[in-house]
């Protein structure tokens, strides 16, 4: 019998895997973006069967829940009702809060019949949180998870498997400047934080002056705070196609390929996930990709990791395969897409997962949904075409701000790629017509 499961997510897991004294590339604190990311835990409903529980920081948006119910997506909900600005910094994420606070009777009731916890990413407090609520947590050791998620590990694996590896590790500001100066002679250089995610923690450097400024900023952190510098320096590769494969590595070392998706990025940040077409699948197969994936899975298991993996890969201009860009040893947006694909496949259609960064309309998600419905753009499981919203709290995360920034995750559902692209364009036009600013 299937075990009833509670799902919960902290999407900025990399932040909690970093060494506390690691030096940082220049960054600006954007509270509005942080609140949006914090509200993304709603997306985890895609993993739930009707008896499973989705645990979120804020209550699941009732109007989104009503909509999902109308298209026969059902699950149980539980919420901590945390105010992201009012909890202590070290208890900010869901599992840290559960581990640090007394058992909540209301939550115990909500978790009735549930026997295991599946987090989006394994964090140091997950085991304590699971133990507090008597839940089973099947997961590798925390150190293993942090290690295999690091880009330093991805680089090591390229070397171990004798795959192309143009990157070097810089262990001081001076080393970074030296390596970057040598690489800049051939073209732009990327500096990557070993645990950066979704464009954050990557910096493109195109001139010696810029490189020198970055090195100076890191040196100041080394001298003033005793920070440890640890960055990947690599030439900017001329990519043709980004794609990712989703794996599940079992505890016995066997693994399953769940899906392959093409990932569309905007600059270095994620923009859209599209199911890989037959041409891409054939191209990577003919270049031996799946053999390499098998070796990577075996190495990860040998290094004591099991669970979900999203392996980011690239096809370069000229056609060469670059199999290891990043290893995300956790759930991922592509895995969320895979779960939505399973739902849509049953209906005989398919979808692209994307989001719109937008000003929150007056009236919030309710107004947004009403516009879609009135325009005939809203997906329902009878017409099998349209825009399916899959988040709502991300749109309203900054409702208290003077100029509230929001983000709306959607799936554009239609049988052909052209129709899916048309739907997104129609949605953009609709929002602009309604006076809703898009970013």
């Amino acid at each position, binding site marked *: 019998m299937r075990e009833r499961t509670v799902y919960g997510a902290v999407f900025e897991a990399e932040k909690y895997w970093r060494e506390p004294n690691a030096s940082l590339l220049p960054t600006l604190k954007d509270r509005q973006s942080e609140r949006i990311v914090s509200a993304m835990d709603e997306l985890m409903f895609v993993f739930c069967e009707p008896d499973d529980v989705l645990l979120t920081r804020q209550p699941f948006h009732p109007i989104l829940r009503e909509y999902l119910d109308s298209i026969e997506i059902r699950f149980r909900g539980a919420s901590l009702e945390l105010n992201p600005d009012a909890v202590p910094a070290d208890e900010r994420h869901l599992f840290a809060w559960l581990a640090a606070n007394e058992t909540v009777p209301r939550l115990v009731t909500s978790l009735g019949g549930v026997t295991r916890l599946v987090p989006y990413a394994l964090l140091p407090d997950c085991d304590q949180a699971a133990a507090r609520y008597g839940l089973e947590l099947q997961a590798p050791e925390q150190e293993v998870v942090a290690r295999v998620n690091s880009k330093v590990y991805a680089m090591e694996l390229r070397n171990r498997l004798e795959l192309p590896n143009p990157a070097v590790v810089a262990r001081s500001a001076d080393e970074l400047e030296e390596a970057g100066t040598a690489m800049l002679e051939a073209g732009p250089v990327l500096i990557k934080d070993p645990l950066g995610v979704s*464009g954050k923690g990557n910096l493109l450097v195109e001139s010696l002056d810029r490189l020198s*400024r970055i090195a100076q900023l890191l040196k100041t952190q080394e001298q003033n705070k005793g920070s440890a510098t640890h960055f990947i320096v690599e030439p900017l590769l001329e990519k043709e196609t980004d794609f990712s494969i989703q794996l599940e590595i079992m505890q016995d070392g066997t693994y399953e390929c769940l899906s392959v998706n093409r990932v569309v990025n*905007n*600059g270095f940040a994620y923009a859209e996930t599209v199911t890989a077409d037959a041409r891409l699948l054939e191209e990577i197969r003919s270049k031996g990709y799946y053999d390499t994936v098998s070796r990577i899975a075996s190495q990860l298991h040998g290094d004591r990791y099991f669970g979900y993996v999203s392996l980011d890969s690239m096809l370069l201009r000229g056609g060469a395969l670059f199999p290891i860009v990043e290893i995300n040893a956790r759930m991922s947006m592509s895995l969320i897409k895979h779960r939505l694909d399973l739902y849509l496949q049953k209906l005989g259609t398919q979808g692209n997962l994307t989001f719109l960064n937008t000003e929150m309309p007056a009236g919030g998600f309710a107004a947004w949904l009403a516009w879609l419905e009135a325009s005939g753009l809203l997906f329902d499981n009878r017409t099998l075409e349209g825009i399916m919203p899959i988040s709502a709290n991300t749109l309203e995360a900054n409702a208290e701000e003077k100029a509230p920034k929001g983000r709306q995750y959607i799936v554009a559902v239609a049988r052909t790629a052209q129709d899916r692209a048309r739907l997104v364009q129609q949605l953009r036009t609709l929002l602009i017509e309604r006076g809703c*600013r898009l970013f």
Partner: protein
Amino acid sequence: MIEKVIKLISEIRDDEALVTELNGNSDIVNETGMDSLQLINFILRIEDEFGIDFDFEEFDMAHLESIERFCRFIENKVDVA
């Protein structure tokens, strides 16, 4: 200076329409559409353009509430430099 800053933003966003859409009152974080990475690039480009250094750890995001306010902040730094 305001025009120069707006031009830089439009270059980073690769959106020429911003040259006419933005003005001194525009909020740099919330109205230009720059993501976190683009904001960092913007600040680094401002450093290059005006020959100043920012202290990223101490930087107060309130300086980005409007282009005009940010320009005053730059002017103060240029004067000190």
